[in-house]
């Protein structure tokens, strides 16, 4: 199994908080890899919330290609974090040239673009870079988005953290998501490593989505360039979230209704029965068939956890006003927020979506049988 940990805090935290929590839960994962998602950044990035940050791994040659590509478009480097790694990586960690975290200034010609168009271009560039990298095997790009950093690597999470010196002030963030394990079902590639990211939406998953192939086929046939990749069966969960909100204009509450709709009996009794029946039918190809525990982060910095219909994967949320964490296991939560009221810990069940909003004051539990807020 994978182990997941996510924390959202008023005060910026080091990524090590999440990695240490993962380490506590190490009985549940095989330490074969790590993925970290950082958002609502502090430190130097605090001052440049709008500047898109490129995260990825590059060879020397790849970096030169990146530079000329970005300069041709008109991007100027605004700030970068240089991660100097020792020549010899720890056992199990591949040798890399450069782990890049670089904030850019938008090209001047982009000034008049609407935000929507701007975001589409950012996606386009990330995909172009990904394709370029795959062609020559010299770049791996995780995200290109304002106020978001992603780091992924194969190997024991703690060794990777030490190797990359992740405990640094520039990487402190208020929202952190981390996952500990490489992909096991398909080939080992960093593109299969959670969390996944698309246009501000990120999710990571514990478990296997057994309906992966039909969902993948459906997303790929939507005609949206970002719905690609799928080296992992869990990536579709990120894209379904994006599709729910950006393409269908629905709220986070609808996400659960799309991935695991209510069964017919319960649906008929729901106050929004007609809407939900339509949603269930029209989005039938997006129904996941877990078992999956999904933790995700929205562009407004809210963090959520949702379980599939089977509820066969562990997941708990707890904390106190100002700081909340979502973890696969209670011991992970204990490691990160020991002095919380444990009576208020909550383990979402098959109908629940647990959400901690950007204000980080409470855990909102939204049950699938509740009326949908967006319709009333």
């Amino acid at each position, binding site marked *: 199994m994978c182990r997941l940990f996510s924390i959202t805090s008023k005060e910026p935290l080091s990524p090590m908080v999440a990695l240490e929590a993962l380490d506590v839960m190490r009985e549940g994962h095989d330490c074969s890899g790590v993925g970290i998602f950082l958002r609502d950044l502090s430190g130097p990035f605090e001052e440049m919330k709008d500047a898109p940050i490129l995260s990825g791994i590059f060879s020397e040659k790849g970096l030169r290609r990146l530079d000329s590509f970005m300069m041709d478009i008109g991007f100027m480097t605004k700030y970068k974090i240089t991660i100097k790694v020792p020549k010899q990586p720890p056992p199990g960690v591949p040798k890399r040239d450069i782990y890049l975290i670089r904030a850019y200034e938008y090209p001047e010609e982009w000034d008049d673009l609407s935000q929507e168009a701007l975001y589409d271009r950012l996606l386009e560039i990330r995909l172009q870079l990904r394709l370029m990298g795959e062609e020559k095997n010299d770049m791996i790009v995780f995200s290109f988005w304002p106020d978001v950093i992603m780091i992924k690597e194969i190997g024991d999470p703690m060794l990777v953290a030490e190797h990359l010196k992740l405990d640094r002030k520039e990487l402190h963030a208020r929202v952190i998501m981390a996952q500990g394990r490489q992909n096991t079902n398909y080939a080992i590639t960093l593109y299969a490593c959670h969390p996944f990211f698309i246009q501000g939406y990120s999710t990571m998953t514990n478990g*296997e989505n*057994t*309906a992966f192939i039909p969902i993948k086929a459906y997303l790929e046939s939507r005609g949206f360039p970002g719905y690609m990749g799928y080296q992992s069966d869990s990536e579709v969960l990120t894209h379904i979230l994006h599709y729910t909100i950006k393409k269908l204009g629905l709220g986070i509450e609808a996400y659960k209704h799309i991935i*695991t709709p209510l*069964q017919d009996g319960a649906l008929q009794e729901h106050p929004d029965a007609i809407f939900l029946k339509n949603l269930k*039918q029209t989005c039938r*190809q997006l129904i996941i068939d877990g078992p999956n525990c999904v933790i995700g982060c929205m562009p407004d910095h809210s963090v959520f956890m949702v379980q599939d*219909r089977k509820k066969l994967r562990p997941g708990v949320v707890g904390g106190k006003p100002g700081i909340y964490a979502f973890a696969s296991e209670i011991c992970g939560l204990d490691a990160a927020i020991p002095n919380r009221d444990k009576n208020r810990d909550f383990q979402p069940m098959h109908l629940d979506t647990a959400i901690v909003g950007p204000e980080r004051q409470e855990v909102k539990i939204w049950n699938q049988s509740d009326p949908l807020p967006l319709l009333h």
Partner: protein
Amino acid sequence: MDAPTSVYKAYYGIRQKTDPAYKCVGCAMCNMVCPNDAITPICGDEADKLRYHIDRGGQPRRRGGRRNVAGGILDRLKFIRISMLTDPALDAGRHEFELRTLLGRVLPPEENLKFLRTNGWIPPVREIYPLIIGSMSFGALSPTMWEGLQMGVAYLNEELGMPVRVCTGEGGCPPRLLRSRFLKYVILQIASGYFGWDEIIHAIPEMKEDPCAIEIKYGQGAKPGDGGLLMWYKVNQLIAAIRGVPTGINLPSPPTHQTQYSIEESVAKMIQSMYMAWGFRVPVYPKISGTSTALAVLNNLTRNPYAAGLAIDGEDGGTGAAYNVSMNHMGHPIATNIRDSYLNLVALGMQNQVPLFAGGGVGKTGNLAANAAALIMLGASGVQIGKYIMQAAAGCLGSESDRCNICNIGLCPKGITSQDPRLYRRLDVEDVAQRVVDVFLSFDTELKKIVAPLGRSTSLPIGMSDALGIDDYDAAQRLQIKYVV
């Protein structure tokens, strides 16, 4: 000399008829009536020579039954993606399952939600059980068989909560059924003979419920490219009345609908007028026989917002009276037809919009659930069965080696396809209904036994091709599934 006290003479109790018209069909009724159980039909170990003589009067052989070819690719498909540890296999007996499918044109999500907001027309969609009793007409089937099927289906729906549907076939629908609440479990078929539709149209104002759907038959697996053929033997008063024809005449339907010579015309005229007849509340879909031109039909349907699905009946479809040559040599296998159609829909991004229904030889060797699940994973939204239900629910004797196969001339020894009361009284309506229920319940359990180990329970695994494998490299390539040995 005295007259002999005893006289010995030969008495011919049976006058043997050697005309091919009287050939033994293997019905085994001799066995059932012989008090000493001394007779049994045994097929010779050599191919019969009768086949060269069954064209008396210049009439090629016609029959009902099956394609008479054993095997087929469906039985060779294996379910290989067994959930092991990374995701636990489910308990088929105790886990919750929702194995339903949709029949109807499903709009793409963006459009559906927009129409919902703006009160636009959203095509009717039925949530039904993925195993459908395919079209066998009232006329082809005996009254007892037909009634048994309807009773079984009604019980499955009303007592067991399984939304099973049955299609009428071309011969119309008994007036009382048209005016009953059970009509909602019935798919009314219209075919090129339009038999029974006068009655149906006139009943519309009096219908308490809408029918489940309307199936427009353009072709069927038993006789691809040929029309229906209810032979005169079976056209008695009741059948004639329901169909609106005189008694005792052959009822050959034309191979195509006489006013429609293209799919565009068909869609425009027939699908839309059928929608209109029921106030746009009933899904209307065409059924074609398996063909290499299925994609052309499908592509046209995708461009029309009304088409509610496409049913394809593969070459192994065998119910229906047909010329021997049509049944044995015409048609397209269902597996590639369904797979190509599904992948075509995927390429268009419309895999959820036009549901595909597969038929033709499903379960012909008894492996109903495995065949159905394989077709679903290849891309079908559901499957239709005909002869399987005749065998399983009424004890049809037919086999893949040309046993019996006299459904067309009304002499069915079991009374399944006869209109002669002396024969059809052999079939007990209640028994048929009971067996229909048994078949669906056991199918349901088997289907769960297939999907549960694959980790699927929340939805029907339509297009889950990663679960399929076959030990034939070429077939694997062709179907785009895994080659496993």
